[in-house]
């Protein structure tokens, strides 16, 4: 496009227009010049710069009123010339600068922007902008001499006025941009960086404008949101740039103590100059703090994310440059920063994190006591306000409040201990946590939900989910993310804080009041996790990682406290079955762990009208403690194995609890423990530690109040383990039986549960041999229950099938009345020659019983005594157990029969004169009887007592049957 490449050609082309313009300053002439300029190449124009500018400047200088349109076009023309050329003379720069400024404000109306059109203002601002960009190096520095201070001040105030008062967005933005250039902080790359002295000099100059600039900018920033985010963003940027420059620590440190004496002719100017001494910087910082507070307040809630981002930059910039001078403002700045860490906008979040990270990395906080003090002060006031805020704010508000709390803690990092070492601070913080973490305990369902596991048959194990925290309901918030924040707060505390101090403090709260107990347990759990560095998100690594022994020590003491009887055996239900036992639990300072169930004083049976709230609270407390144990296991890993000694027993005890939530949580804890201690499965965990458990059971059985717990542990063990457990627990099962012998009256129901589990387990484990017979059983219910087991476990061989059919045929014949044997009377006392039982189990008569069958026999023995218990529930339960005993003993007919013989009278009584429920159950008890049961029981007693011919002959000679008959009829 450039037509005129050489200065000569260009001169030739421009001269006529310039002359024309000099003669007549009209808009047309300027336009003509502008048009010609387009055809001149930049190097050529550089040569002719002053020549071309002359008529333009002349046009501006001509006295008298001028057309606005003319001025505008002249200014635009100047700006286009400047855009293509460099200003190489200092005088030219200064003159142009002042001439342009004058355009905006005629000297007559000083400091007040003239009533000019917006276009003109814009043009002038842009021209100024271009001018500043066309000057380089020393030339531009000449503008920043004390002598030019008035001129600069004039320009700054003009631009500020425009930025603040103009309506047009474009002008505001341009004015702010221009100001930015003016303070040599332009965004573009072309500028040379000032050397130290230059910067110092500029700083001195700008210090004079600082009050004006900062106040005006803060007004712009906090102005109407409708002005658009771009303006706010530029204003914020300008603000921190100028503040960062003037208040820079680096510069302030180099300011001489005393004001330099300037020569006489400069004395007037020197009055304008500001000496940035300590006094000045202190008072300025104070004033800036106020402004900064306002800015942070308004920008941190600004709807546009870019403003927030810019705010983060502001904090970053000032933190970097004015660490000492602006320390008072840091509480506001950090608050802003920390508050924005969890902003919805990911860019703000990321940048915020970066900045926090860099602050942490530079160890600004860690090495700066003053800043740490600021932070801890902030923390204190926040902690004070926290309960109130949590009460009044909505979830979003709570979230940001807690983010702030977390941010402070993270920033403090290792300096957290300063806060913690102050009693007042720690007290505030912990109380705040206690209040915020208060659980909602109004849900009745928690108390109502029962586990009916013991009623259903054997629970399959191994399909358990990894223990995860039960969802908790809090009084003051509902959102999960709020809880997660609180979790992080506790973990960060644990990560950096002095563990002993914290554990001690929260243990104090734990014991102090029931009100705080759940919360402090929750906090303790998280503290430990944090101390071990599990799931903590921190800004910088702590100096020394936690000592494993310390951790173990803390965990042990917490564990002891958790499993202390007073904290472990809480009343969680008013179930009639449990209430008697639970109430009589002895409370003492002793832990629930095995071996310590020592003498203690019975508490007076507490208020029987327990509120659901209390029970709900108790349930939650137990759950939290269980979760804690799981967490401790995860933290310690294999080291936890040593603690299983005391921890496993209580957990198993709770796994057998009737409250659904508790037993589920306990199961989760068990799975956690399994994983942490690297056991393959729950069975492994139980089997390999059965010695600890057995020890606990056996010792607790000695205490009346602990018997239910002990039986519950055994119950859980049986439920979740396999046949390999049997030899390990045989010993203790004998203990259980002998304990039962001593207390048939009051403890029967608790022990029956364990006996039931035992027998169910035996049926399950030795199902193959036991359930064979039952395959032939006529009872549909029996079938449905055992068939699945049979199908799973029994590998049906051909012989077995054959035997089954042979059996079946014979049974059928018997049922039809074709008894193979002779009459009852005849065979009295004579054993049958041919044994009707096809399988060989009968021959075992002489050999000692296998242990499981012996157990079944022992249990059956007890059942005989219990069959006539006064309590219907107990009777029903006994019948259940009895049924299982028979199943287990089935293959060992020689042992079963005498037992059956002894059971018979009691059973008959059940059949004839008991509650219908018991009658029904009694019928189910003997599968052989059951086949004809329903019809029989309406018949007269004599007939009802006739053992069914379907099965009885397969066990024994008919003669005995007759004796039964006679005996029972007596």
């Amino acid at each position, binding site marked *: 496009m450039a037509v005129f490449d050489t200065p000569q050609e260009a001169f030739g082309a421009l001269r006529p227009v310039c002359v024309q313009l000099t003669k007549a300053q009209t808009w047309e002439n300027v336009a003509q010049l502008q048009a010609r300029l387009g055809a001149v190449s930049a190097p050529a124009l550089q040569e002719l710069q002053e020549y071309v500018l002359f008529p333009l400047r002349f046009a501006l200088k001509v006295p008298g009123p001028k057309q606005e349109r003319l001025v505008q076009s002249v200014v635009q023309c100047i700006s286009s010339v400047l855009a293509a050329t460099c200003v190489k003379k200092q005088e030219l720069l200064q003159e142009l600068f002042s001439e342009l400024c004058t355009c905006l404000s005629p000297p007559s109306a000083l400091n007040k922007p003239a009533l000019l059109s917006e276009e003109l203002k814009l043009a002038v601002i842009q021209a100024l902008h271009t001018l500043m960009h066309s000057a380089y190096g020393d030339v531009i520095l000449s503008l920043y001499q004390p002598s030019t201070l008035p001129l600069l001040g004039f320009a700054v105030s003009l631009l500020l006025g425009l930025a603040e008062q103009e309506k047009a967005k474009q002008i505001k933005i341009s004015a702010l941009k221009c100001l930015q250039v003016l303070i040599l902080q332009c965004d573009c790359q072309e500028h040379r960086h000032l050397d130290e002295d230059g910067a110092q000099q500029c700083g001195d100059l700008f210090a004079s404008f600082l009050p004006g600039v900062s106040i005006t900018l803060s007004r712009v920033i906090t102005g109407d949101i409708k002005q658009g985010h771009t303006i706010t963003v530029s204003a914020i940027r300008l603000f921190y740039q100028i503040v960062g420059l003037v208040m820079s620590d680096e510069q302030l440190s180099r300011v001489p103590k005393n004001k330099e004496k300037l020569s006489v002719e400069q004395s007037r100017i020197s009055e304008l100059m500001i000496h940035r001494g300590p006094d000045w910087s202190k008072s300025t910082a104070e004033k800036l703090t106020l402004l900064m507070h306002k800015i942070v307040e308004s920008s941190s809630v600004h709807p546009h994310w870019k403003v927030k981002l810019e705010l983060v930059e502001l904090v970053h910039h000032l933190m970097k440059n004015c660490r000492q001078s602006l320390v008072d403002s840091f509480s506001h700045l950090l608050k802003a920063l920390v508050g924005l860490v969890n902003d919805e906008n990911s860019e703000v979040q990321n940048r915020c994190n970066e900045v926090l990270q860099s602050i942490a990395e530079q160890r600004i906080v860690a090495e700066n006591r003053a800043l740490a003090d600021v932070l801890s002060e902030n923390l204190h006031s926040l902690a004070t306000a926290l309960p109130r805020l949590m009460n009044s704010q909505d979830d979003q508000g709570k979230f940001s409040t807690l983010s702030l709390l977390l941010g402070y803690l993270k920033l403090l990092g290792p300096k957290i201990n300063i806060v913690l070492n102050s009693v007042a601070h720690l007290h505030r913080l912990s109380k705040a946590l206690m209040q915020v973490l208060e659980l909602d305990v109004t849900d009745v369902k928690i108390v109502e939900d029962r586990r009916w596991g013991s009623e259903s048959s054997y629970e399959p194990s191994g399909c358990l989910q990894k223990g995860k925290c039960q969802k908790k309901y809090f009084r003051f918030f509902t959102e999960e993310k709020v809880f997660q924040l609180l979790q992080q707060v506790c973990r960060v505390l644990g990560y950096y804080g002095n563990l002993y101090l914290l554990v001690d403090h929260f243990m104090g709260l734990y014991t102090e009041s029931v009100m705080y107990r759940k919360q402090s347990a929750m906090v303790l759990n998280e503290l430990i996790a944090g101390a071990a560095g599990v799931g903590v998100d921190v800004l910088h690594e702590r100096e020394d990682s936690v000592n494993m022994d310390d951790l173990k020590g803390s965990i042990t003491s917490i564990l002891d406290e958790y499993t202390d009887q007073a904290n472990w055996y809480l009343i969680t239900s008013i179930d009639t079955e449990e209430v008697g036992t639970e109430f009589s639990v002895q409370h003492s300072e002793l832990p629930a762990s095995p071996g310590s169930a020592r003498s203690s004083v019975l508490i007076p049976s507490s208020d029987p009208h327990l509120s659901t709230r209390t029970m709900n609270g108790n349930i939650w407390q137990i759950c939290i403690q269980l979760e804690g144990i799981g967490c401790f296991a995860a933290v310690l890993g294999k080291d936890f194995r040593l603690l299983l000694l005391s921890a496993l027993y209580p957990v198993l005890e709770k796994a057998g609890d009737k409250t659904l939530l508790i037993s589920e949580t306990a199961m989760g804890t068990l799975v956690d423990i399994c994983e942490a201690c690297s056991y393959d499965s729950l069975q492994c965990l139980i089997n390999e530690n059965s010695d600890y458990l057995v020890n606990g059971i*056996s010792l607790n059985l000695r205490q009346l109040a602990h018997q239910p717990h002990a039986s519950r542990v055994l119950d859980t063990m049986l439920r979740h383990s396999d046949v390999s457990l049997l030899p390990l627990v045989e010993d203790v099962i004998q203990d259980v039986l002998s304990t039962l012998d001593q207390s048939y009256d009051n403890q029967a129901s608790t022990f029956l549960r364990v006996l039931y589990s035992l027998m169910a387990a035996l049926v399950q484990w030795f199902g193959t041999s036991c359930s064979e017979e039952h395959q032939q059983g006529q009872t549909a219910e029996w079938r449905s229950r055992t068939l699945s087991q049979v199908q799973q476990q029994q590998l049906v061989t051909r012989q077995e099938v054959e035997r089954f059919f042979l059996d079946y045929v014979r049974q059928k014949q018997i049922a039809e009345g074709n008894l193979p044997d002779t009459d009852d009377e005849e065979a009295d006392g004579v054993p049958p020659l041919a044994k009707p039982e096809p399988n060989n189990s009968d021959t075992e008569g002489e050999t000692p019983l296998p242990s499981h069958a012996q157990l079944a026999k022992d249990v059956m023995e007890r059942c005989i005594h219990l069959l006539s218990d006064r309590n219907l529930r107990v009777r029903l339960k006994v019948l259940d157990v009895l049924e299982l005993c028979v199943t287990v003993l089935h293959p060992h007919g020689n042992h079963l029969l005498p037992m059956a013989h002894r059971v018979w009278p009691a059973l008959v009584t059940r059949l004839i004169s008991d509650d219908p429920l018991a009658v029904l159950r009694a019928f189910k008890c003997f599968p052989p009887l059951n086949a004809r049961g329903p019809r029989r029981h309406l018949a007269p007693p004599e007939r009802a007592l006739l053992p069914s011919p379907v099965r009885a002959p397969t066990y024994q000679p008919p003669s005995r049957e007759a004796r039964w008959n006679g005996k029972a009829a007596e």
Partner: protein
Amino acid sequence: MALPPPDPEFVLRGTSAAVHTLHFSCAGQEPDFPILFSGSENGFVHVWNLKTRRVDTALDGHGRKSVYWVETLDAKDRLLSQGRDQRICLWDLAEGRTSVTDSVFTENVGFCRCSLLKVAQGRWLMAMAAKSLEEVQVLELPSKTSVCTLKPEVGAKLGMPMCLKLWQLDSGSQPWLLAGYEDGSVILWNLSMGKALSQLVCHQEPVMSLDFDSEKAKGISGSSEKVLSIWSLNEQQNLQVHKIHKLVNSGISDITIRSDKKILATAGWDHRIRIFGWKKMKPLAVLDYHTATVHCVSFSDHRNPTERLLAAGSKDHRISIWSIYTQT
């Protein structure tokens, strides 16, 4: 109201045979864990780690014949065990080894427990029942040289030695031996002269166990009768009956005076462990846990008094561990 008797601190199971002897080794400092050695009827010596409360190792060196005495030589690495196979074995347990480094063949068919006394650094005396029925032989360890053989006078009809106790007033002084015999008498032997100094008939039945407090010059013995006999030794080296303490049930299988000489424990055939104050024989507690005869009682030698324990081994295959220091 007196406190009800405590429960065991914990119970060790898994010997799968009656436990006949126990010995603590808790003096080691961290990270050494306290250890309890137990000898059982099936010939095993179990090494229990009292921290995990589990068997660390099971030593099989007596041909499945009952082990009825275990004792350590100084540290827990060197263990002596005596079994019904008529051997006394010296075990090397250092660094996980479990080998018998030395053994003595006693040729004695009785079940008299040996007695060990450290007379100097690295030098011990061990008294054991010898081959011929009434004799007691004293060996020096580790050289196994015979120091003396103590034969009762001809025609004394003491029967077999049942229990032995080597003692000395203070280290370096002359060692003495107290031996309880089948006929119910206790004899004080002077080892250097090989001569019985004093004889006291304490019981009508064989002396099952005795222990002696050299500071108070007072000893105690138990037999299958219903009494404990307390006797003292006067300046003329004569044994005198001091007191007879009557028991409810008969039969004492082991008596141990605690090292601080304040209390003593007895193992009873009535399944119970009894604790007495040593000074006045004041009954302090009856510990009831076992379901069969208690064979042995032992006090631990832990450095920290609060962690000291009492262990009792019984015919019911269990070892009960009691913490009675805090209680008494």
